[in-house]
């Protein structure tokens, strides 16, 4: 088991090659695309899959004791390197809401260019939910129910 690269969509940006903490990628200068040179050393951190702007890496998790028996593993047909969720893209000039959680973006914007199209999130964490197409939990409701709010002083002592 190791990362699988979808060479059709890969545009040779080198993010996977540059970011991999375990240095498992090599670079094929003739095709200008990555090769999984050291598959045995993959630690399944998923950084390449998460950072790939073309969504063309699929880190296959090892079959192991984690394997759930809640539901039989569904065999996946064809390449499963992320089909981008079909959602309305906001025009760059009037970005108001996070595409993952729907909250209004008031602070710094997290901008991700995915297959050439800019997408906007209120944080990197929200992008994670978007990436794996799972609904983001209602963060503020969770905070309200489970944490104690403490006001942070505005300046250092």
């Amino acid at each position, binding site marked *: 088991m190791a990362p699988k690269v979808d060479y059709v969509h890969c545009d040779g940006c080198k993010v996977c090659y540059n970011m991999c903490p375990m240095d498992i990628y090599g670079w094929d200068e003739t095709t200008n695309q990555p090769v999984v040179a050291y598959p045995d050393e993959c630690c399944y*951190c998923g950084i390449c899959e998460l950072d790939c702007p073309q969504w063309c890496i699929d880190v296959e998790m090892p079959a192991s004791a984690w394997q*759930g028996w809640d539901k039989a*593993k569904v065999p*996946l047909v064809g390449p499963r390197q992320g089909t981008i969720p079909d959602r309305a893209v906001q025009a760059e000039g009037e970005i108001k809401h996070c595409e993952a959680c729907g909250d209004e973006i008031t602070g710094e914007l997290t901008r991700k260019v995915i297959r050439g199209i800019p997408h906007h999130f209120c944080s990197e964490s929200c*992008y994670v939910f978007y990436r794996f197409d*799972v609904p983001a939990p209602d963060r503020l409701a*969770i*905070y309200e129910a489970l944490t104690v*709010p403490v*006001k942070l002083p505005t300046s250092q002592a």
Partner: protein
Amino acid sequence: MKPKDASHEIIETDVLVIGGGLAGSMAAIKAHETGADVLIFEKAALRRSGNAGKGMDHLPIVVHPQLTTTPDEVAERSLIGVEGLVNPTLSHLLAREGYYRILDLRDYGVEIGQKDGTLNFVPGSLELGKKHTEARWTMIFFRGADLKLKLAKEVRRRGIKVVERTVGTRLLTDNERVIGATGVNVRDGRFVVCLAKCTVLTTGGAHRLYPSPEEGLTNYYCPTNCGDGHAMAYRAGARLTGMEFIQIQTHTVDLPPGPRPHGFFVILVSETGEDLLKKLDMKGNLLRAHARAIRSEEKQGRLAYWNTDQMSEEAIGFWRLGMANENPICLKYLKEEGLDLGRKPRQAKYRVYGLLRSISGPIVNEKCRTSLEGLYASGDLINSSAMGGATGAFVTGGQAGKMAGQYAAQVKRGHLDEQQIRQEKARIYASYNNEEGLPPLVVEEKVKALLAEYAGIEREEAKLKRAWELLTEAETELIPQLSAKTPHDLLRAVEIQDILTVAQMHLQASLARTETRLSPFFYRVDYPEQDDAHWQKAVIIQQDGGKMKVFSAVPTNWMEGE
């Protein structure tokens, strides 16, 4: 390239930081603030390296303005159970400065708290000593999936030089003062020499001593943290301590690693649903109590479970947030496998991941200076306190960087000893010149299997002595056979030599401590009782004339004398 006659470049700087994780980034920033010229050697890529590369969403804060606890109280409390094993002045430093390093993070653009500045504390642990019997901190929760990205941005913004894909291999010395280090570029095999006024080691814990739980190099921690800093410090003559304690983590059997359930209001229960910690009257460090409880059930032929079936909707959402922030790929796994987090209880298990971080490592004083002049250290690497974690990395990293910067302002660069460089080149490139031989990972598997068989959780003298013989054999017979075909293999060949050195220290320290302490982190089958009369002190290891010298001392005598 013919590495035998490879030339090398010499880079000059004021402060060299080896390792660009949380502690390394903070050390570099704080050293830079003193006006020093700073350079980072990073084994991988600064944006995504170290334990927090995937993200990091919780920080223990020990003292903050809203809490009436004083640093003294916290420092005192943080020593419970680890008296004699950690330096109390560092516990005090962590208690005093943790909060202010977190405010720094906010300045670097990390989303600490809500937009209006509200922090979210996990309740229960907010009141020290209320929920967890010996609670040592309050935990703040934030969205930190991009923590490392933001830190890396700040490092770059300040113009700190970063040499990526370069692994530090040896500290250079001039009359017992550390004056820089050598490194190897793992992409092209280039040899790099950095001549610095002082050096900060921030290479993280030694987490690659025992076999990986799954395929390849999987690890709960970042597998790049193999103990190279421990080995470098040892070879340069620094003192290390706590090398006998192992790091254990508790998990669920059928979920991928990632945030562990106990942080999300889940408790450990027996097969019949009883609260195990209450039933067994386990107190103290939660991780240790959980591991002991699971082991205790195991010994009686029973399984232990996390009561995840009792989780509220909010708690499940909180766990999912935790996964998104700390190990995003968990979300994909859950989705693909059709796993439902809160549906049923999950079986609990524990695993060994190398040495106990923040306990095992070089000794440092309150300035985060090691026993060698010109060598500072911080983060998971050092013996700091039982608390450590990300806040520990920021506090000790900040302190080491600041002190290193101040020291650098007062001294001149040392003189390079060409012989040290020649020796190191010969050592590094030996495997590169071996066309036929053992791939580094094969040797690594052997060493790990050996440790799992002869050391591990249940240690005893006869087995430890046999392991020492076998390791010595491995060093003399397997290491010369190492064969690296590519510069990348060179990295693994360097790492296995470091892992072996750390393993040797681990065995010697385990043999020296003739008692059981912090079980199951250190459990001697032949000495199952805790012996406070003789052993409320640390086992210290230092290289002396090429031999491993082992002795014990109380924290006040750590830096010199025996």
